């Protein structure tokens, strides 16, 4: 078996790949923002024991954590087009769908990994020493202030190690975007495969690119973890 990577010299294929990498990174970043928003909000509801929100949040977490993100993506993609939410384009006056494939991918990434993030952040909050919380309370902080200024900043730092694997999982999951025809890196790869028939070589290259992106993400998170390290905690 010989591997032939000469197609990589073609500038057209290079643009497709680079654009795909850009889309994948953008998808992952937006997904991460949504993931953190959902994770923090959900964990706050559970941690503060908000009476009417606890059960809905639990149901939400269990639903999205125990079902495949791919099926969630297909479901969102079809349901949102079924409901037919559209926007009026101010330039052309035409109607464009509000939820494109791109939006659906960001939503499904944020929902699936966000549901996992809720549990991660919640266990981080539980790891905050009780004395610290008591101290804040005795200084006159309200329950919400304690959460905002004491528990959340410490709890988020406590949850960095499991959050790293969740972020890597989100980046890996973003490869599913190709299945709803979003032009991410996998999409570029399938296009190149269709034209060059070098299936194996393209897939191996894509594999390496994902490994590099995931490893870079791990390095960045490590930097962040080092910056926000609490002296005396961890190694």
């Amino acid at each position: 078996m010989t591997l032939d990577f000469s197609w990589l010299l073609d500038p057209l294929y290079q643009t497709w790949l680079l654009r795909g990498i850009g889309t994948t990174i953008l998808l992952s970043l937006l997904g991460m923002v949504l993931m953190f928003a959902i994770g923090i909000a959900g964990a706050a509801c559970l941690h503060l024991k908000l009476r009417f929100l606890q059960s809905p949040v639990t149901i939400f977490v269990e639903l999205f954590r125990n079902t495949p993100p791919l099926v969630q993506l297909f479901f969102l993609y079809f349901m949102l087009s079924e409901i037919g939410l559209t926007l009026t384009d101010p330039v052309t006056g035409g109607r464009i769908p509000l939820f494109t494939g791109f939006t659906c991918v960001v939503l499904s990434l944020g929902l699936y990994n966000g549901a996992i993030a809720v549990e991660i952040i919640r266990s981080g909050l539980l790891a905050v020493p009780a004395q610290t919380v008591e101290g804040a309370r005795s200084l006159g902080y309200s329950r919400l202030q304690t959460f905002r200024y004491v528990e959340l900043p410490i709890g988020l730092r406590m949850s960095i190690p499991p959050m790293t694997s969740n972020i890597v999982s989100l980046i890996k999951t973003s490869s599913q975007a190709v299945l709803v025809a979003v032009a991410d890196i996998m999409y570029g790869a399938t296009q190149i495969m269709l034209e060059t028939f070098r299936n194996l070589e393209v897939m191996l290259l894509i594999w390496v690119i994902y490994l590099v992106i995931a490893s870079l993400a791990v390095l960045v998170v490590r930097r962040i973890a080092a910056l926000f390290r609490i002296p005396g905690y961890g190694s």
Partner: protein
Amino acid sequence: MNAELKLFALGTAGVTLVLAALLVIVYGAETGPVLQALAARTPLLLSGSPDFSRFEGGFAANIVISIWAMAIAAVAGTALGVGMISQSSLVRTPSFLLMNVLRNSPWLVVLYAMLYLLPFEIALFGTVFSFSPMIKAVIGLALPVTANVAEVFRGGVEAVPTGQWESARSLGYRRLQILHRVVVPQAIQFMTPNLMTTYAMLFIGTSLVVVTGADDVLSVARTVIASDGAQYATAIYLYVLFLFFIFCFPIAILTRWLEQRVRVRQ
């Protein structure tokens, strides 16, 4: 078990209600006919055959694929895990590298790569083994899961106090004997909940085998949508979500219960 039972009841009832409510919101007055269409297609989605005559496709295929992939990953992952705690860095470093590569690769890419990397058939000692899409799916899923199992194995072994190693060594056991007879039997209780989580993750991952052309539940769902019309798409995907949930949620609850028990015993 009480808190977990409560959570189980809340989760099962709540998710079923939420999914049913979504169905009604999307279809409104048409919910009745849609439910009838779903009921008619249930055997196909569950077993891949219109009358439950065989269990080779649909949701049954997902279960079969996940069990085979887990079996392969358990064996390969244990071997990789033993390599990762080896004393010789010649074995340890490559094992770590392999584990990190496998753990950071997207499952979808591995599945695609297996599709092109594995031959259609292979002749071995005169017999021809053909690689069906199903077998490719099993191998493609087993690879990344191997890394997870190896990590679980390493974590479990490291949770056993080092005194156990020392006393076994002073009794004259060799390294692999210590692992096999002293450490792993104690580590199994730490490993079990994590292995179950890994299995649940793998089962969720079986939804991806749709790209290899295996006859899994998502492939069947797409065929049904293509034949019955796109208006049923939402209902069918809701149904598939429900199937996955009903399979994975009890595993998650059981895992949590086991974790609690391990923690209490410590």
